[in-house]
């Protein structure tokens, strides 16, 4: 027989099969997600979840699609994190050591409590990247935050009310625009597109039958990880 576990969804007890993810367990209990669910594969960051376990003082944060239910879990979903995002034109701003703190001055309120790092389901060193941002190190902020999926849990837990993931996104945009080598193959391809190199092919594909399209998709050539063309020439 299927083993069942007790969980509490917003305080109400349910018995759900062992081994389900929090997201599946909630659906099993009768909830339907119209927000707070996306890729269901741990990439999109839409399903931030908060829970406690019986007899444990810790407040846990995770992604509902990636975490398995345990007996005695108290659960709630957080479908949205309110956080202000600075408005900027990435082409007009300069990536100097004051840019991040100028757009997000509240990062100076960080007291290094590390709550953000503890909250991150991606196990990023969130506090460390905020500290890097504070000292103007755009590159380090971009690197440390690279795997951020913008779930917003850091921002909801922060006692200094920082919107970490927006700071990090600005850092990565600055890094991409001003520090990373330009992707030459992309520029080349864009020019080809503008000249209509693939227009004919697109027209042909648009007229194809669904069955043939599926066949074509499944037998396509998959690009190699890195070709000579994608590398930056020195």
């Amino acid at each position, binding site marked *: 027989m299927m083993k069942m576990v007790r969980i509490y969804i917003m305080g109400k007890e349910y018995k759900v099969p062992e081994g389900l993810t929090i997201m599946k367990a909630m659906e099993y209990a009768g909830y339907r997600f119209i927000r707070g669910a996306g890729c269901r594969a741990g990439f999109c960051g839409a399903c931030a979840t908060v829970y406690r376990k019986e007899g444990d003082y810790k407040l846990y944060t995770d992604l509902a699609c990636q975490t398995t239910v345990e007996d005695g879990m108290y659960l709630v979903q957080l479908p949205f994190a309110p956080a202000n995002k600075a408005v900027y034109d990435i082409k007009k701003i300069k990536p100097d050591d004051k840019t991040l703190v100028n757009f997000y001055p509240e990062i100076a309120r960080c007291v290094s409590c590390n709550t953000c790092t503890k909250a991150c389901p991606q196990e990023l060193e969130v506090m460390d990247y905020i*500290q890097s941002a504070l000292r103007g190190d755009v590159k380090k902020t971009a690197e440390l935050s690279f795997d951020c999926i913008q779930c917003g849990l850091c921002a909801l837990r922060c006692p200094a009310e920082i919107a970490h993931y927006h700071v990090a996104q600005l850092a990565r945009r600055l890094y991409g625009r001003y520090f990373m080598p330009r992707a030459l193959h992309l520029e080349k391809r864009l020019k080809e597109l503008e000249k209509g190199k693939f227009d004919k092919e697109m027209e042909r594909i648009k007229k194809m039958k669904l069955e043939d399209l599926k066949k074509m998709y499944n037998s396509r050539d998959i690009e190699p990880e890195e070709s000579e063309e994608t590398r930056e020439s020195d």
Partner: protein
Amino acid sequence: MEMAYYPGCTLKTNAKLFEESAMKAFSLIGIEMKELDKWYCCGTVYSLAKDNLMYRLASIRNLIRAQEEGFDKLITLCSVCYNTLSQANIMARNDKEAMEKINSFMDEEPDYEGSVDVLHPLQILKEKMWEIKERVKKPLNRKYAAYYGCLLLRPAEVSVDDYENPGIMEELIEALGGEAVNFPLKNECCGSYNVVANREAVIEANYRIVTNARKNGADAIVTSCPLCYFNLKDMQKEVKKAYSSFIELPVHYFTELMVEAFGVK
């Protein structure tokens, strides 16, 4: 002698010159500063609210990083960081109750054992005056006013020298072949953070301090604090506008003098 080095945010932004000159000068007299792999803003001001332990976390976490990397000495150039870290360290060594709470709050970190000494380089240079003299290639041959400000001297428990009448920087200036002038305002406050909210206070302090240094015959002022440096040097433009009789004076970090006297590029 390898020591943990805590830079602080300002040394990585506005005061890069201070860090670069210190690295060059200190390595020549056998002090190797190894920057901590990870460090956090010290908190900038040591909060005088004794029960607000949240403001101690950053300092204690930095001390844990030094402890973790196996250092028993941590040096920092910035007077503000030095003051904040030193005071937090004294608290860590004396206030068991507070440390119990802090250690239990930071349950992801090892406990801080109080095993790290926080030092300012001037305290180390004091023991190395003969080495410094031997290293001098181009004696300074100028007159300097040694400016300490507040944070290297107060409170008394963290003072790098006699807190009423310090003399380490004068000793250093003389060792480098310069002349240290008598400077009564050497521990006068530069105006500190008033530069943000009350610029007039800083302009007035700057006028008094710089004029006093000049009247005592100084060709330049020497300091160890990035905030004093900003208030005494960068603010001179505004002082000039407020006081037409004001005559400007160069301001240097003490490490710049060392680099110059050691003949390093």
